[in-house]
């Protein structure tokens, strides 16, 4: 089981190969890609930043939780940091299990928890030249509900 941050492009073939296991009847992987639109705006690129020590610690905890909850054989996740272009892979999650129910559920759990808990931040750059840190708006459209700043 491992989580790491990567400054270099992710290699999904190598990552999947690292999960090879004759006990596994199922391997489920997830790839997060940089898409060209978000919240109605055209994205030109984005960047990810992380607090490495705690990102690794919290992500490792998430993988450990998944392994216990879902009867997995193994789980691996890698998250990019740095500048990414449209279409690049931002995150890769792979899990193996004897059976597919656990593998599907665990993969979903890992990416969902990672997005909610791991100290990694995303800054989107738009074709207009503007940019913003995602989830950090304090007023206007898509600001957190209940805010009255």
């Amino acid at each position: 089981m491992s989580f790491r941050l990567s400054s270099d492009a992710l290699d999904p073939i190598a990552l999947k190969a690292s999960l090879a296991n004759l006990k596994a009847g199922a391997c489920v992987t997830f790839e997060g890609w940089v898409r060209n639109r978000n919240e109605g705006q055209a994205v030109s690129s984005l960047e990810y930043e992380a607090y490495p020590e705690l990102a690794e610690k919290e992500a490792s905890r998430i993988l450990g939780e998944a392994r216990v909850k879902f009867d997995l054989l193994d789980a691996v996740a890698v998250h990019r940091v740095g500048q990414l272009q449209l279409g690049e892979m931002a995150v890769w999650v792979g899990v193996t299990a004897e059976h597919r129910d656990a593998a599907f559920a665990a993969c979903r759990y890992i990416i969902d928890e990672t997005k909610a808990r791991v100290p990694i931040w995303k800054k989107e750059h738009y074709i207009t030249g503007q940019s913003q840190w995602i989830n950090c708006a304090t007023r206007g459209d898509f600001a957190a509900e209940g805010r009255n700043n």
Partner: protein
Amino acid sequence: MPKLQITYYAVLREQRGLSSEEVTTAARTGRELYAELAARHQFSLPVDRLRLAIGGEFASWETPLADGAKLVLIPPVAGG
């Protein structure tokens, strides 16, 4: 008064204008400290949108601040 190391990331780093600094403060908790910093530097995010780490681990905003503590202010995360 405790002397603390504060590290900022992402939007907070941009608003503060630096990645980390040493701060001497009368603040007794992380919450009091953030109130002080936010007022001084006009941070846009209220404390309940942020999380705190002390010594490399998530911590409650109510944790008493010890001299030499290393704090990290964690803006809303957006990984994946």
